[in-house]
């Protein structure tokens, strides 16, 4: 069960909206960069009826957290509607978000030459992009309540399988 499915029962007054994007790595034609994904989320938010009196919360997993951070930065630097959404943002819970980058060497090997290679490069440690995003995010999130979850079990790492 995903958090999204558990939420309506625990918070009957909340409206839960899912924002997804293409995370397929191998043989992907997607050349979306993080700012592209963020822009798409910004537009989604602007098009939504958020009900001005209610707080807006983000739950973001992994790369999604980077997208959320980039989105909030973009809202701050955008138009009035954007800033209004930012003002409505009460906070976020980030799950295993690679705020300082991740070990992407293995993943990089996999996507070499593909359109989404740039996206992964953005995430490799040490990442100038992530550092700069962290700085910009601090600027816009001072008022928000943020929580950061980290996983305590190791995750299986990727290997490219040559067998069918």
């Amino acid at each position: 069960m995903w958090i999204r499915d558990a939420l309506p029962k625990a918070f009957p007054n909340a409206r839960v909206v899912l924002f997804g994007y293409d995370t397929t790595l191998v043989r992907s034609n997607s050349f979306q960069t993080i700012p592209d994904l963020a822009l798409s989320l910004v537009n989604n938010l602007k098009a939504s009826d958020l009900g001005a009196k209610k707080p807006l919360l983000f739950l973001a997993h992994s790369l999604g957290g980077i997208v959320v951070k980039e989105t909030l930065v973009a809202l701050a630097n955008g138009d009035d509607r954007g800033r209004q959404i930012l003002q409505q943002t009460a906070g976020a819970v980030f799950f295993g978000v690679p705020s300082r980058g991740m070990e992407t060497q293995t993943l990089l090997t996999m996507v070499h030459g593909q359109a989404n290679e740039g996206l992964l490069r953005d995430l490799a440690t040490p990442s100038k992009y992530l550092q700069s995003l962290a700085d910009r995010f601090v600027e816009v999130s001072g008022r928000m309540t943020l929580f950061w979850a980290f996983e305590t079990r190791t995750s299986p790492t990727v290997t490219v399988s040559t067998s069918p």
Partner: protein
Amino acid sequence: MTPESATRGLYGQSSKTIFGINENHSDMVKFRNGDPNCQVVFEKLKKICEEWVPESNRLSLKCDEESHWMVPFGRNRDFVGRESILTSLLERIPPSADRADCQRTAVEGLSGIGKTQIALEAACRVRDQHQDCSVFWVPAADATSFENAYREIGRLLGVEGIDEDKVDVMALVKVALPRKVVGSWLLIIDNADDVELLFSTSQLAEYLPFSPNGSILFTTRNHEVAVRLDIPQRNIILTTEMDNTEATMLLRRGIKESQMQDTASTTALLDVLAYLPLAIKQASAYIAKTRISTTRYLEHYQSSDKR
């Protein structure tokens, strides 16, 4: 994702905002029915909603770019000595001394030892060095004076609704101080002596704000308070009685040299006053007013003592 990478998105976040989920990276957002991890996440969401203040209830922008000086006393022109204590304080209390934390520092010492005057002098020096830093002084001897000072801070910051009935003034100010428009600040909690007041009956300690742009200085005669406020040992500055030079300098303020000619009785007087600045100050004021000598004052003092 290491805890390091997964959590260092923000500077100055406290460990209270970080939590572990006993799953691997992809399973950390999937829950079984009644999964305790799920409850933990829901708690966080509730907390975010509780701390949210709708925009209409927020600060107006009137405090933008302004710094405030809310201290109920003027600079004490008779302040003498205490240089090593002041040096320690000035290394610790300016908000910029630790940009990643809302550092807490305490001046601890007996009643009458001069903690408040030291805090006042330190505040003046912070102000001299950091003109953009606001200073707010909160007396913590009782709940009413604490709340009144908070209300005054709220007014200065232009917190909406601060003068309305039934608002939680202290809660409003607690969330207002970390706002960016407020800038950097030094909060002084004077006479934080009463454990009950701070931690049980009025729970005043709950209303201490947190901001990496802020810093809190306490004066206390109660070591337990300093400990329970989580002040690290190196930030607890012990204040003892004055040394002979400081005490003589303090006594001399406002007294003519002719009144202190007898150095033996001056020293004897300082001895009976136990080098306590408050006692010296009172003696000095009395001597200045009555224009008697320290020798004569000492006689007075000792004879009244015997009675």
